[in-house]
């Protein structure tokens, strides 16, 4: 460990959400799985942060822990300060008040997140009645205007979920998340199960809502290009930690962590000759979360690993204006170091081809 980095905040705008040294493990003892291994970031009002990572990277566990939605077997340590107040140590009554009214969540798979035997109106009205002193009629009127906001006709209020298409259900989920006027929305893979055209519609909707209502948005996806449609900043997660954090355009155009580069290359840009008949993958599998390893967790799969990567690990470190990366290569002493041979890894075709030795 070298030194932790903190993001430089604008003192005038207090952060909406501040996460520090968050760790989540499942189970105890030697078999415990460390799903989240020390995450720090902050989010301001009206800002959209995208969290990217593959399955098992800990991104869903991370955001579920914000609202204390994890099962009891999960051990959560660290702090999640919402308007300065730590959600992890709040009493339950306060947590329940924050959920929906302060921070709400859009889950993936709108098919299973909606109750199949209750109408859309009943489901949108439920949190409103629970959280506010408001009559049933006014709550229903609110539900109707919410449907309008998410682009559905008010007549759909009386529909059951099975009468709606996938995209319409996802719109209902978004309307529910907006129901109590939260200032933070967490969207976990909001478009994964949707068709391309519908995905584009939903992304457009999220973008407009976040911009118009100055809602802080945290969006999770495995697809960096989906996140970059909506988000101002990107955080890339690997093996339970954030390995790169920075403004969306910068991370996309000039990634400062080799894992971010690999994720970006996996989805080609059409017209890019380098990707034509040449899909980019990343050999190997993510590390086993039950095993604590020395060194950088990405080193075994990294195409540009150096000997030092097997033994050293750094926390997020400034890698440019408003940018952080946990790659050893952002340190001045390693910036131009050649690829090492001391780290066991699979051969990286692209890095070694056409590179005569000597």
């Amino acid at each position, binding site marked *: 460990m070298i030194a932790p980095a903190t993001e430089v905040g604008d003192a005038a705008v207090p952060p909406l959400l501040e996460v520090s040294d968050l760790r989540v493990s499942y189970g105890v003892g030697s078999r415990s799985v460390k799903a989240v291994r020390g995450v720090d970031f902050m989010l301001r009002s009206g800002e959209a942060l995208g969290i990217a990572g593959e399955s098992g990277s800990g991104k869903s566990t991370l955001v579920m822990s914000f609202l204390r939605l994890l099962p009891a077997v999960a051990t959560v340590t660290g702090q999640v300060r919402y308007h300065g107040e730590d959600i992890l140590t709040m009493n339950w009554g306060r947590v329940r008040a924050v959920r929906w009214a302060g921070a709400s969540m859009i889950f993936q798979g709108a098919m299973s997140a909606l109750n199949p035997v209750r109408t859309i109106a009943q489901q949108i009205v439920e949190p409103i009645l629970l959280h506010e002193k408001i009559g049933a009629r006014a709550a229903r009127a609110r539900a109707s205007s919410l449907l309008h906001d998410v682009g559905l006709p008010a007549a759909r209020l009386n529909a059951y979920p099975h009468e709606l298409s996938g995209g319409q259900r996802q719109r209902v989920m978004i309307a529910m998340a907006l129901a109590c006027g939260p200032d933070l929305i967490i969207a976990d893979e909001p478009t994964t199960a949707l068709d391309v055209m519908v995905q584009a519609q939903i992304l457009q909707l999220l973008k407009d809502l976040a911009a118009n209502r100055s809602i802080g948005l945290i969006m999770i996806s495995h697809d960096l290009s989906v996140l970059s449609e909506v988000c101002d900043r990107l955080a890339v997660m690997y093996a339970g930690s954030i390995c790169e954090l920075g403004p969306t355009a910068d991370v996309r155009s000039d990634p400062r962590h080799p894992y971010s580069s690999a994720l970006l290359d996996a989805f080609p840009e059409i017209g890019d000759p380098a990707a034509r*008949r040449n899909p980019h993958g990343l050999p190997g599998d993510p590390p086993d979360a039950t095993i604590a390893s020395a060194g950088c967790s990405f080193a075994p799969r990294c195409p540009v690993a150096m000997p030092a990567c097997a033994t050293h690990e750094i926390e997020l470190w400034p890698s440019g204006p408003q940018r952080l990366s946990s790659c050893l290569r952002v340190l001045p002493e390693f910036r131009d170091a050649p690829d090492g041979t001391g780290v066991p890894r699979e051969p990286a075709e692209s890095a070694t081809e056409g590179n005569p030795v000597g």
Partner: protein
Amino acid sequence: MLEVKDLRVTFAGGRSAAPARAVDEVNLALREGEIIALIGESGCGKSTLARALVGLVKPQAGQVIRKGSPLRYSKAALRQHRRSVQLVLQDPAGALNPRHTVYDLVAEGPRLHGLTDDLYQRVCSALNQAGLRPPEQFLARYPHQLSGGQQQRVVIAGALALAPAVLVADEPVSSLDASARGEVLRLLLELRDSLGLSALVVSHDLGLAWNIADRVAVMYLGRIVELGTVEEVLLRPRHPYTKALLSILPGSRSAESLTLLQGEAPDPTAIPAGCRFHPRCPLYSQRHGDARAPWCRERDPGVLPALSELPLAACHFVTPAPADDAVPPLASSVSQ
């Protein structure tokens, strides 16, 4: 190699419901060693077309032709057909029996086809071809002990064990992680190079086409609306539907080029008259005054032929304007 001609697959509606025309006259020819990407929204009939190619659904009209001879739907003929045309499904976790070992999973096909001589050799070489090396290390494993990418390789090995000539892959990477996606796509390319395998890859992902395909067929509401090489279709799209699909690619779209089609994928039980795309077509709504606009409502732009020297698009605004009373070109009138 493998061809469909005027293929039509209809699913009967329940009671008073109209039948769904899932595949509504499609011509497509897969050449030897060629990879075609079949692109479209969900519900456009692309999976049904894939299943028809393997002989899993019987078409109401038209033919599936392999090596020049039309497929007959007898048990023996289907068996023969499926040995050389293998299907790879979307979700490997669902396609693999969790209680079978990798060996049994890959050996299942050869056993069903009575290819039990050298079964061990056959399984090992299929695993090897699918990139699970050394194969011995995987034989005794169960699906849950494998990563998503490895599971999909086992599914592909199961197909390769029968030494097929064609792979029909339905969304082969959509349930995989980003890093495994590239690896599996690379495998499909390698198999084409080493075994001369042809493939029809069904996907909603235009990036996949750019990564591996030779030609692209864009399908809308049961019909192929644009067909051509990857470069032609993706870099110089002609059909407004293809243009819309390209404009919504996340990450690369700009506000001015964004063409967001309204509504969901349309209903195959009620295919619009005229051009089936016209109710959602941005070109049609922009060019109400154009002389060809009424055609969009009234005339079917026709069925594209399977093979052509030129890129093809089934759109009245793309085909050169014929004389006033001319009928838009139909597939039957295009000589091949």
